[in-house]
């Protein structure tokens, strides 16, 4: 594991850095308030939860909405993406960077409440965040509490986080209104991923020019990645934005066997054939302009020995089961798509199911109150194109595939 900025400092294996060590190493943040918001805008830093929404713009919106009453800050450490580990690692090792970011946000946006929202099953991360909170000054502790995110895919979606805090149910609600306009108890609410908050903590110390001073191929800053699947040392890495997938995979020890494809961005991401994937620069904006996504920074390397159809069917089944069952097109549509994928995987290709997949992928898109169906459909479409040969002539072999 390597650390450039967020993961710099003491050995990650020694666990959470204490407040005393953290302060000795980094000093206190110097920026705050409106100048911090404008610095964030200039830095161009985007959210690292998956949507890459520009942080400065979000802060401006919350600040504008908060002119009528106090805001709420939700520290999003739900990390429901099964292959992602970067948020957990950051919470478990650098909790005070995250809390610095959270309380800078709270002071800047005049928040009366901070909620640290951590995946219930991320026990080490939860314990580290709880312990770190106890080390903070009374004025910060007084306005802060922890809340558990259930182990569901949609629990980390920002309106779901608000819903959990408000009503104890981590399902998404219809947007607009967005949490930044009307969130917890109708107050404007900043829901910000833990990695994003950690970047903010450093930008508040060193400024936007410093943030942009690293990065390759025109991209700025660093990112945390989780490299999973067929690599020699899978795990979390911090790389400069704009690093190619090939370089990131090399940093994870290289492929353990020849790769067929890369699943970029996690289960809401896209399959890319390996030959095309290696050259791609890891940067939210660049990837979006090519119809792809960095998502939460997962790079899943698929070894050539695996079957793309069976892997896709397995992930579609997961995504269908993770629908919060609130919107018909998502609940019924994803289930139907998953069933059609499973039939192809188990019994072999049939023309009717291929046609159904293509039709339903169009029908379901954009018809949920959250982006769950859209993410699942984007994933499926990338599978149909990346594995088009395999979908066209798939044998009945699912049962023989290891999970």
């Amino acid at each position, binding site marked *: 594991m390597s650390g450039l900025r967020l993961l710099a400092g003491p050995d990650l294996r020694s666990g959470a850095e204490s407040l005393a060590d953290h302060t000795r190493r980094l000093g206190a943040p110097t920026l705050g308030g409106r100048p911090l918001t404008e610095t964030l805008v200039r830095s161009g830093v985007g959210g690292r939860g998956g949507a890459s929404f520009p942080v400065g713009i979000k802060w401006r919106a919350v600040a504008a909405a908060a002119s009528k009453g106090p805001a709420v800050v939700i520290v999003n450490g739900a990390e429901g993406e099964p292959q992602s580990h970067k948020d957990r690692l950051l919470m478990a090792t650098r909790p005070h960077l995250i809390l610095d970011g959270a309380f800078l946000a709270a002071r800047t946006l005049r928040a009366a409440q901070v909620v640290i929202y951590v995946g219930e099953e991320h026990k080490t991360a939860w314990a580290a965040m709880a312990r770190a909170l106890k080390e903070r000054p009374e004025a910060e502790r007084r306005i802060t509490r922890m809340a558990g995110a259930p182990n569901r895919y949609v629990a980390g979606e920002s309106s779901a986080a608000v819903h959990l805090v408000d009503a104890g149910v981590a399902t998404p*609600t*219809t947007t607009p209104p967005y949490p930044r306009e009307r969130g917890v108890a109708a107050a404007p609410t900043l829901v910000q991923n833990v990695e994003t908050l950690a970047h903010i903590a450093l930008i508040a110390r060193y400024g936007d020019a410093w943030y942009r001073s690293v990065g390759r191929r025109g991209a700025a800053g660093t990112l945390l990645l989780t490299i999973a699947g067929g690599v020699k040392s899978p795990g979390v890495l911090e790389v400069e934005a704009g690093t190619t997938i090939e370089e990131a995979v090399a940093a994870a020890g290289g492929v353990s066997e020849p790769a067929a494809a890369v699943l970029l961005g996690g289960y809401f991401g896209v399959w890319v054939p390996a030959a095309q994937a290696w050259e791609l620069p890891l940067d939210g904006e660049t990837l979006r302009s090519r119809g792809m996504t960095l998502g939460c920074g997962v790079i899943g390397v698929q070894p050539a020995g695996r079957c793309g159809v069976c892997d896709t069917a397995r992930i579609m089944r997961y995504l269908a089961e993770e629908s919060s069952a*609130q*919107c*018909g*097109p*998502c609940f*019924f*549509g994803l289930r*139907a798509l998953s069933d059609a994928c499973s039939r192809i995987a188990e019994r072999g290709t049939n023309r009717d199911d291929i046609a159904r997949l293509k039709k*339903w992928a169009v*029908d*379901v898109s954009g*018809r*949920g*109150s959250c982006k769950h169906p859209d993410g699942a459909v984007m994933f499926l479409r990338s599978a149909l194109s990346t594995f088009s040969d395999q979908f066209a002539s798939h044998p009945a072999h699912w049962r023989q595939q290891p999970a």
Partner: protein
Amino acid sequence: MKASIHLTIDRTKCDGHGLCAELLPELIRLDDWGYPIITPGPIPERLGRIAQRAVDTCPVLALALRRTAVSR
């Protein structure tokens, strides 16, 4: 300035009763599970009244009209 009117639907409320598609097949069709697919874009003026009726008839109040001001 002129107001343009769009149909919107609260997907968490919609139960797929399908009355809207019965009343307004010009703009609403049902998917394979009985849930409405709305043709994007503003409602043509000639369909304004029937669109309002579709909204009023929705048993779960999921369908709504949204007016947005557009400059000519």
